[in-house]
């Protein structure tokens, strides 16, 4: 038995939405100092709704798979809805990750938040779910 279930492996081997959107209006990048992982997400936002999303990720299997499901899951969501997504949602959508790999999915949550944060800032929006969020602050990562 490998580390990952079939769904994770599917998203890892055939990641959805790879690349950078040409017509993106919200880009977020996030790096996790513990795993050495890095994710860039580019969103296209229209009328408060995420109509398209693409990603690039430097990271292990679970980082790539959660990036992939994350881009799928944000599409069609309002910004408020997208901000409510946590890494646990991605893990659940993937049907679970090994305990030691749960943290890798945080990357996607944070990258999405960062993209929306920048978009909100540029557009003068005040969104619930972004209080206290600062993508430039040190990211406190629980080591297990």
């Amino acid at each position, binding site marked *: 038995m490998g580390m990952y279930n079939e769904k994770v492996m599917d998203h890892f081997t055939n990641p959805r939405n790879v690349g950078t959107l040409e017509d993106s209006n919200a880009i977020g990048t996030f790096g996790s*100092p513990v795993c050495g992982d890095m994710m860039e997400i580019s969103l296209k936002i229209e009328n408060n709704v995420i109509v398209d999303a693409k990603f*690039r990720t430097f990271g*292990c299997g679970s980082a790539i798979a959660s990036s992939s499901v994350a881009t799928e899951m944000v599409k069609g969501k309002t910004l408020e809805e997208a901000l409510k997504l946590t890494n646990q949602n991605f893990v659940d959508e993937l049907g679970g990750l090994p305990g030691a790999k749960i943290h890798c999915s945080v990357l996607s949550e944070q990258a999405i938040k960062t993209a929306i944060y920048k978009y909100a800032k540029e557009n003068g929006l005040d969104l619930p779910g972004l209080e206290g969020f600062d993508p430039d602050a040190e990211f406190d990562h629980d080591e297990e």
Partner: protein
Amino acid sequence: MKPIYLDYSATTPVKQEVLDAMIPYFTEKFGNPSSLYGIGFASKDAIELARSQVAALIGAEDREIYFTSGGTEADNWAVIGAARSRKNKGNHIITTKIEHHALLHTCKALEKEGFVVTYLDVDDNGIVDPAQVKNAITDQTILISVMFANNEIGTLQPIAEIGAIAKENGILFHSDGVQALGNVDIDVRSAGVDMMSMSAHKIYGPKGIGALYIRKGVVIENILFGGGQENKRRAGTENLTGIVGFGKAAELAGKNLNDHIKQVRDLRNYFLEQIRSRIDDISVNGDLEKRLPGNLNLIFNYVEGEALLLHLDIRGICASTGSACSSASFSPSHVLSAMGLPLEKVYSSLRFTVGDFTTKEDLDLVVASLVEIVSKLRELSPFDKDHRMQSTQVLR
């Protein structure tokens, strides 16, 4: 699909001849080596034969070989045993930043007992400078421990020079020889080591058996107490079949040493050439000359090592991001970090080790897979060289 195994530094398969030598000692010749009857004596004889086989591989005398449960126990015993037995003489230990965790974590444990440990840097090529060893010596120094060959990047350390320095200063010298054994022509006398750790599962023997060479006359404390086995220095019913297998593996390693080295080195070099010619933006970690014959540690820029591993695994190819025991712990290699490699290159590094069962055809298949996987992962990567994002700016 039979896997293509390129992780001989992590562990090796047991050779059929080795297994054949072991088999009778499971079910028939199973006597306790301490027992006073025929099958007990036969077990004892088998152990003594194995001891002489291991001794012969490193130019030691039989009685200088003490069997342990592996390389980890050998490292622990050497360092803890030496430190505790010499604590009245001093409390200072010198080692390097690129030792195996079996050594480093043991040193950390000794620090809690009041010992002071100097962890020496290595140069960009992953090699320790003997002059630094010399400079680190104080009047409190009781032990120097420098590995023979590194497990991640395969670099060979200047053991004889360090041995001479240790001797000049009357300091005990231990070397972790786990990776070097069977891959380098080792002679403990000319290397000037007082103690050397070994492990069977790196030389086509079974897992869970190793040995510590302790030069005759050198006294260190025991770390396991009980029966009088191993000349009263290592208690516990002997791992009879493990010892027999280790002995046989050592015999084979000695007999084939030069051929093994040449064959494995040629394959490794061929592999590197092929990769170099077909994938751009790669580089080698560690000195290519002063190196274990089978080791190749490469940076695949912009690509994360673990994702690469996983893609290789899907194709039945076995490689490693570093030492096996830390693969599962996902922390950046302390060896590559000690060489001054920036973090994103550490995370882009992969170790391949070729061994006795590797074929050119295997390597060709692996190269083809690598070409495909690396390009796929680079497409996925935010670090592509054409891409605007700079890694160093984001990785904190």
